[in-house]
């Protein structure tokens, strides 16, 4: 089993390839771990399962596309890797607290936030500080 740096590399792979299907075997190999050990270790270090992390990453990207493009909700759901609109809507609502359409309607016409992507990404990550949970 690799160290936390290897787990981070596996997470980075999800950040890079968020629109591709989740490949636990490949990610576990990146982390130098068995699949079961990888999932357990990932959750211990980052506070959520790889699957949930990937969902969060996809929803973060989808939120950006909803804010900044005119693509339809269905198109965006496919762009970020969801296989169906209902799964996308459910995940979006769980993570963002509202539907994709409501999110888009609420922010339509709002001035764009001048926040660099790395800060947006940081804000949407689960905290690394357990006391912040």
């Amino acid at each position, binding site marked *: 089993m690799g*160290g*936390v*740096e290897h*787990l*981070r590399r596996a*997470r*980075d792979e999800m*950040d*890079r390839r968020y629109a591709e299907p989740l490949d636990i075997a490949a990610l576990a190999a990146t982390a130098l771990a068995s699949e079961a050990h990888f999932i357990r270790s990932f959750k211990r*270090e*980052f506070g959520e399962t790889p699957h949930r992390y990937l969902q969060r990453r996809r929803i973060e990207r989808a939120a950006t596309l909803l804010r*900044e493009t005119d693509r339809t909700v269905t198109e965006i759901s496919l762009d970020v890797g969801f296989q169906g609109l209902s799964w996308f809507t459910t995940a979006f609502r769980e993570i963002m607290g509202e539907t994709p359409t409501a999110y888009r309607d609420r922010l339509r016409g709002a001035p*764009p936030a*001048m926040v*660099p*992507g*790395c*800060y947006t*990404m*940081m804000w949407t*990550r689960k905290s*690394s500080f357990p006391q912040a949970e």
Partner: protein
Amino acid sequence: MITKLSHATIWVLDQDEALTFYRDKLGFEVRTDQTLDSGFRWLTVGPPGQDIELVLMKPGPPAMPPEAAEQITALISKGAMGSGVFGTDDCRGTYAELSEKGVEFLEEPAERFYGVEAMFRDNSGNWFSLTQRSG
């Protein structure tokens, strides 16, 4: 009045490895590399053309107790630390150049309303945006 930001700290896991990354991969200039009698290594770098020193610091005593250093080191390793923005006149060209040198990108260059942006990590785990501002 304050006239500029002259120094900022980037916490790194290993100063030698960080130096290799910032100097040889990002192309930064070494501004100071001096080890004091106390053993404290003052290592600063900066992008060519900008008068700023980025201090590459390794967490540890005497600046902080070992347990605090351990926590910060864990956060760096997890990729939870960092977040800053480096500017470029050509995000896609710089992305290609740095990728060729082995820099790990989290996001390829993409259009944003404020320009073109990519995201990368240093070899400690700190992440940064690489932004080409529009307009």
